């Protein structure tokens, strides 16, 4: 019996010894296999919020402009050209004549007005309406104080001309237009599956989905795969070389790593941290360490003692050896943060405020009345369950203990508990991370304005708030950046948050993938990607 089983088992294994690497034959068929993090919640650009969703939508829908895979300046998308008025407040977009929906309809300026109307409708419940708040009256319409959408600053002058009026100059506005929330949606499709403001209708399903991107939705099997196929009616389809992209939901880094190494994926979304070091030797051509526009930080609850004291917050920051952290703990090529906004060498460079100085830290703690950590209450550090957060939290716990004699307990909770405890202020120190939605200091600094939803520190500073307002109304980019710089200096002195490191995007990329480009927001238009065997 047993022998029989062993024999049949062996034959079973030997029976399938032929090569089964999908990537080996992918170049021939131009099929790209992507590891895409968690399963997308939906594919409605006005409702989703996650990175995996944004990757799929990059293939399915195209906005007025598209992200440049190799540089900061956006490329023309549906708009072939645009004018910006002298005061930076009026944008006129000229749409290309050959832009089509995947069912053959023309993409018009009215489609954009419809989409932005839908996105801002309070009844839809979009989670990203602030992406368009720079548009005149958009915020008022979204908050319900204005009911008439025609008063919002977006107009179709004719079917191919779109005029957008902003309430203040926003040099980053074209950046915003690369974001999926500002992309058009197909009116007839949406309204044949529900009302304009019906969330969660069936229009996002394969077969129903009408898009204007380089690819169309072919298959969506939950927790298994999303397949998109080349869209022949896409205006620029002649440059599209890929026939299909398969997005695999892989939320487990170890499994994704195994899938890559066994030839099931071309691109991964991450690399397990403990592998980064050895892979730089083993797979130097595959491992990619790209700079990324995000900051990992800890936030204090400034409403609670002892963190209502600025000196304590500063002391805790000074006691962190960030170099040791990025070299020995996170190990993924991250850069130690020296401010909140990640540096952008081409434009805004934040003040370099953060340092490691345990002696000064001790001194500040003494001034705050806790000499050698005596009488300092046991404080709690909150983070959501994850290998990386845990490791870092333990290292930091140790650093505070050795240099300041402060006892910190660690509380790891699941994601939802972590979120809800922060939003109701039930924490002392909490781990946090922020990825800019667009490349501009505003996408970081605006968050710390008094009572913003993601401030969550209870911190409020009049001067800081004013500086941000002044920055918004600045006429020149340099003046804006100066205001931001000044605001950030206040932030780094007050320290309601202590930045720890600047993120990197680490992932594996197969040698056959070409035209991938380099982009610090990690979003790449797939029309320029192709496969070529070496």
């Amino acid at each position, binding site marked *: 019996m047993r022998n029989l089983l062993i024999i049949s088992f062996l034959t079973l294994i030997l029976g399938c010894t032929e090569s089964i690497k999908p990537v080996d034959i992918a170049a021939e068929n131009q099929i790209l296999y992507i590891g895409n993090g968690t399963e997308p919640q939906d594919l409605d650009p006005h409702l989703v919020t996650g990175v995996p969703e944004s990757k799929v939508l990059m293939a399915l829908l195209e906005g007025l402009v598209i992200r440049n895979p190799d540089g900061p300046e956006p490329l023309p998308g549906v708009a072939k050209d645009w004018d910006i008025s002298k005061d930076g407040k009026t944008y006129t977009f000229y749409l290309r004549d050959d832009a089509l929906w995947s069912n053959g309809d023309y993409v018009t300026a009215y489609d954009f007005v419809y989409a932005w109307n839908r996105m801002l409708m309070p009844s839809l419940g979009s989670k990203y309406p602030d992406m368009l708040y720079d548009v005149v009256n958009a915020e008022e319409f979204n908050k319900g104080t204005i009911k008439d959408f025609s008063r919002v600053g977006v107009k179709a002058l004719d079917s191919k001309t779109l005029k957008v009026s902003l309430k203040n100059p926003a040099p980053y506005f074209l950046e915003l237009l690369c974001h999926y929330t500002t992309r058009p949606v197909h009116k007839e499709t949406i309204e044949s599956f529900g009302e304009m403001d019906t969330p969660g209708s069936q229009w996002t399903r394969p077969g129903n989905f009408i898009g204007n991107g380089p690819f169309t939705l072919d298959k969506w099997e939950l927790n298994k795969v999303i397949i998109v196929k080349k869209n022949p009616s896409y205006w620029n389809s002649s440059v599209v070389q890929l026939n299909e992209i398969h997005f695999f939901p892989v939320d487990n880094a*170890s499994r994704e790593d195994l899938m890559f190494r066994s030839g099931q994926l071309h691109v991964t979304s991450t690399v*397990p941290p*403990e*592998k980064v*070091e*050895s892979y730089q030797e083993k797979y130097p051509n595959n491992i990619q360490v790209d700079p990324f526009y995000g900051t990992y930080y800890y936030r204090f609850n400034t409403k609670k003692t002892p963190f209502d004291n600025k000196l304590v917050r500063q002391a805790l920051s000074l006691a962190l050896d960030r170099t*040791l952290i990025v070299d*020995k*703990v996170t190990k993924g090529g991250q850069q130690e943060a020296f401010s909140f906004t990640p540096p952008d060498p081409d434009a805004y460079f934040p003040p370099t405020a953060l340092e490691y100085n345990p002696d000064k830290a001790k001194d500040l703690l003494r001034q705050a009345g806790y000499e050698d950590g005596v009488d300092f209450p046991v404080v709690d550090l909150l983070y959501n*369950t*994850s*290998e990386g957060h*845990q*490791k870092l*939290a*333990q*290292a930091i*716990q*140790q650093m505070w203990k050795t240099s300041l004699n402060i006892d910190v307990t*660690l*509380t*790891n*909770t*699941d994601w939802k*508990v972590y979120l809800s405890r922060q939003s109701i202020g039930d924490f002392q120190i909490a781990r946090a991370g922020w990825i800019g939605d667009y490349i501009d200091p505003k996408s970081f600094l605006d968050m710390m304005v008094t009572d913003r939803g993601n401030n969550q520190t209870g911190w409020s500073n009049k001067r800081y708030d004013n500086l941000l307002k002044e920055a918004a109304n600045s006429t020149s980019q340099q003046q804006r950046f100066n205001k931001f710089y000044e605001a950030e200096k206040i932030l780094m002195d007050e320290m309601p948050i202590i930045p720890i490191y600047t993120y990197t995007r680490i992932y594996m990329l197969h040698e056959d993938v070409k035209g991938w480009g380099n982009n610090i927001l990690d979003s790449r238009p797939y029309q320029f990607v192709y496969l070529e065997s070496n």
Partner: protein
Amino acid sequence: MNKQESSLFKDALIRLTTNKLSFFSLIYILLLVVVAIITPFIAPYDYAYQDLALGASAPSSDHLLGTDTLGRDLLTRMMYGSRISLMVGFLATSVALIIGVIWGTIAGFSGGKIDAIMMRIVDTLYGIPFIILIILLMVIFGRNLILLFLAIGAVEWLTMARIVRSQVLNLSKQEFILAAEAMGVSKLNIIFRHLIPNAMGPVIVYATLTVPQIMLLESFLSFLGLGVQPPLSSWGLLIRDGAVSMEEYWWLLIFPSLAFSLTLFSLNFIGDGLRDAIDPRTADN
């Protein structure tokens, strides 16, 4: 009766100790328990002490079993981990064993309506998918160790009760029980002197399987991030961390896995030895 009983017990003990494997297993487990108890006094390092600059290092004279990625001594962490793992395993099994045996015996022996009601209750509890229950419990009340093994124990007794019951049903139809009943031996006497000892074989086999099962369940919960709170650790947590980096730092997987598996091995061998030892029928041979 008394005399016979004690000699039976003595026999069992002798048979257990003559079975070499079981004997060594017993020694190993006892040693482990002793080490676990005195760990705070003999551990080479503090369990939270980190040497970040060192990072993960292979076994050396300073760190006999190497260090983890934060430069903490693995031996120390395994010693502290053993406290948690053993406690969860043994306490939860005891909870399960006590409830299960009593419940199953009463149900099987009483028969009729009482049996039906008692087993319906077991079925009811079976119907509740316990993994979600434990996850929800851990989410709501945080990572509480006592709660963890109470919850596991309260779930694991169900199977125990079923096995005991089916065993008792089998036995109670057999001649010697019927004879005892006919002779007017009291019910309690029958249950404790005849039914439970005779039903013990499979129960002990199952109990020895339950301890590792619970230790495994703990490792599953660790896998989901619902294990013990760091910097404390359990073997399940250590193994899980080791499995992630097994290609880079083999010692992080090998040593905790060996300790874990050896413990489970030993528990099983002891169970086997006990089973052979207390089974009155093997005594006849």
